[in-house]
């Protein structure tokens, strides 16, 4: 008798999967809008994080200035920054009473980009520092012998490590696209405006509407797997092409 309950659950799951599959197959407009916004926001945040984080990471690896060690520990620590805390801080900055309140950015995709960029920059910087520090220990004497300044050396190593660094960028993107706390707080999860994959999954699941959540969850997993496959392929190719 107690066998009934699981069976009902199974049917419910089956139906949800079926509907999810139909949504995917029909490339449902609402679904694709959410997916595209997710990709746009997280890509923009990752680009900003790379532009800011990679030079910071390289200078932390190569530079010699007071406070360097403290900054290294700080950035390593900030890799584990809780998204909700980032969301809260950016919320305070952008809210009407906050220092940047005048721009009216709160609950917009721009606010979400800012929050994710803040979240991801330390990750990109810390991973970049590791890559460049390894290269620096190998190249240091040669570059100094050729007369490269430390800034120049940092730039050279960023270029030389470009394929290893693509992994840092993709790790950042993976973190951005998968987080929910920051975009939820600063975006507000407004239907058609700031609703992304993760916030929709959270909302729909809590409403008990599983098909859309499942479809999005499936896409999210595919995106994350694809990123890693691309990263792997790029590194393999680069290794064969440039050594």
């Amino acid at each position: 008798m107690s066998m009934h309950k699981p069976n009902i659950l199974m049917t419910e799951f089956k139906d949800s999967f079926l509907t999810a599959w139909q949504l995917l197959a029909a490339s449902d407009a609402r679904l694709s809008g959410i997916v595209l916004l997710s990709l746009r926001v997280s890509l923009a945040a990752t680009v900003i994080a790379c532009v800011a984080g990679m030079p910071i990471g390289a200078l932390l690896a190569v530079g010699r200035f007071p406070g360097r060690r403290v900054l290294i520990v700080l950035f390593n620590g900030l890799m584990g920054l809780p998204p909700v805390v980032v969301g809260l801080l950016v919320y305070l900055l952008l809210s009407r009473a906050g220092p940047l309140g005048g721009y009216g950015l709160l609950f917009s995709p721009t606010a979400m980009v800012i929050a994710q960029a803040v979240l991801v920059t330390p990750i990109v910087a810390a991973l970049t520092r590791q890559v460049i520090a390894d290269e620096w220990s190998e190249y240091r004497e040669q570059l100094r012998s050729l007369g490269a300044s430390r800034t120049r050396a940092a730039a050279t190593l960023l270029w030389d490590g470009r394929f290893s660094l693509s992994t840092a960028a993709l790790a950042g993107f993976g973190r951005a696209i998968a987080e929910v706390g920051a975009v939820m707080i600063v975006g507000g999860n407004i239907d058609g405006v700031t609703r992304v994959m993760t916030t929709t999954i959270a909302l729909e699941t809590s409403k008990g509407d599983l098909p859309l959540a499942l479809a999005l969850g499936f896409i999210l997993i595919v995106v994350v797997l694809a990123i890693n496959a691309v990263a792997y392929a790029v590194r393999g190719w680069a290794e064969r092409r440039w050594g």
Partner: protein
Amino acid sequence: MNTWLSIDNLGLTEGSTRIIDSATLTLSARRTVVLGPNGAGKSTLLRLIHGLLHPSEGTLRWSPPLSQAMVFQRPIMLRTTALANVVYGLKLKGQKATECEGRARQALMHVGLEHLASRPARLLSGGEQQRVALARVWALEPELLILDEPTASLDPASSREVERIINDIAGGGTRILMTTHNLGQARRIAEEIVFIDRGRIAEQTPVAEFFKLPRTAAAQDFLQEEMP
């Protein structure tokens, strides 16, 4: 011969180890080879002279100051073409971008690698990479070239080629200061041998005399062990 470098009471201490101990030396030969047992401080002395290391005490007096370049035991190649690796050195010295490529190609020709110019440098063989490294410094036309065991990890054929290139560079008027484990090579390249033992300069002797009869017991032992 004019003295171009006077080293006075040079020392380097790391922790409690004296790596270089009160080295006093005047260099005036155009081709000097530093010999000595493993761990004697040969590489360290070259790095102090090149400015990669700062001495704990003592002075280096250049007369006149020479533009210098260094080749290392293991060539360091950037992840780009052989040609771009040579161009990189020129760019760092402030050469005009338009002139860099021509000079770099010429340097690659001198080392016999112009046909590999557009190949990824890190995929070349060890010997070829060392020749690209030599082209990179040759293009800079330094007045002093320092080489730290440039053939230590190369096969005999590559070693001979590298030796040929070093001779050509020296023929252009560049002073050579190098270390090697290959005594035949030292004999062929050097005018003068500096023998260093446990961080101290043991002797400085013209090459023929050194290989016939070194002045110090340490050098005699060294030669006996290396050439039984």
